[in-house]
């Protein structure tokens, strides 16, 4: 009980810090220096109408690479921690009884979900959304597959391929930026195209697609790994 009060006391201290932070915040009337630059030049330099996408994929594309790396790391760690290897997944384990409804529904719904996911990241430079929500949507499709088809191990290889290829593709596109444009992850490897069109904004759609696939694959990996964890030989 005393401990709770101590914690509360310390949190009161944190509260004081947060209160000072709150007081330091005075709202915004105009954009800051960097934001103003992005607003003024983002569209013309990068060619993406979604400035957030322009920032995420190009201006701060390097961050995004790191972020993808984090997901990648998490998936890798989880799979080696939970010892998920192909050979650990027993091929003929007792099949869980899935409802007929879920089974048949998934056959219809999963492709639709995938399409939606792909749409979200392909159009990332035009509309809200992009690689991350798109990837998450794809992952939820995979999740549905896991739920409906217990023998998920079949698609494990596919996921690994998608994961690797999209990751390597991301890096290679970045390197192409060095070779053919201004620097690592420069999107102007291809022409900027017509503003507002699908094939515009240089390689942003491609990068975002890779990101989406990669995120989807990693998230699927994580989900798959946890779902298979029960098979670990203790």
């Amino acid at each position, binding site marked *: 009980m005393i401990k709770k009060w101590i914690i509360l006391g310390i949190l009161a201290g944190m509260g004081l810090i947060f209160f000072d932070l709150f007081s330091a915040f005075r709202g915004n009337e105009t954009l800051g220096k960097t934001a103003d630059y992005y607003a003024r030049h983002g569209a013309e330099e990068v060619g993406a109408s979604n400035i*957030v996408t322009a920032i995420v994929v190009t201006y701060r594309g390097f961050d995004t690479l790191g972020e993808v790396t984090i997901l990648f790391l998490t998936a890798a760690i989880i799979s080696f921690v939970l010892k998920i290897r192909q050979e650990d997944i027993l091929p003929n384990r007792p099949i869980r009884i899935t409802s007929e409804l879920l089974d048949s529904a998934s056959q219809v719904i999963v492709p639709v979900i995938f399409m939606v996911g792909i749409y979200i990241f392909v159009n990332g430079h035009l509309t*809200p959304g992009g690689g991350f*929500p798109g990837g*998450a*949507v794809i992952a939820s499709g995979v999740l549905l597959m896991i739920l409906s088809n217990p023998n998920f191990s079949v698609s494990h290889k596919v996921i690994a391929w998608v994961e690797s290829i999209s990751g390597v593709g991301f890096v290679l596109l970045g390197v192409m930026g060095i070779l053919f444009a201004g620097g690592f992850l420069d999107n102007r490897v291809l022409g900027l195209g017509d503003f507002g069109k699908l094939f515009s904004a240089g390689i942003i759609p491609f990068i975002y697609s890779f990101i989406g696939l990669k995120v989807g694959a990693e998230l699927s990996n994580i*989900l798959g790994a*946890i779902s298979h964890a029960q098979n670990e030989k203790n």
Partner: protein
Amino acid sequence: MFVVIAIFIGVASLIGGYIAIHHEDLSVAIIASGLVSLFASIIFLLLAAPDVAMTEAAIGSGLTTLIFFYVLNKIRQRND
């Protein structure tokens, strides 16, 4: 108008957070935490951040909650 909604959602998310931390039943707590994310994505929308809102909805309230349930499920399986 937006301000009222914002206050309402803010309070709701705090209540959700409180439930998430204090509710005995872990399932309820996880769902409450997912709700907090959902409320947060509404706040993002109100703050003119549709990208963030979408991501938060898909990842924060969707996938995270799912992973929680997955793990909880595993733990319960073991406890059985």
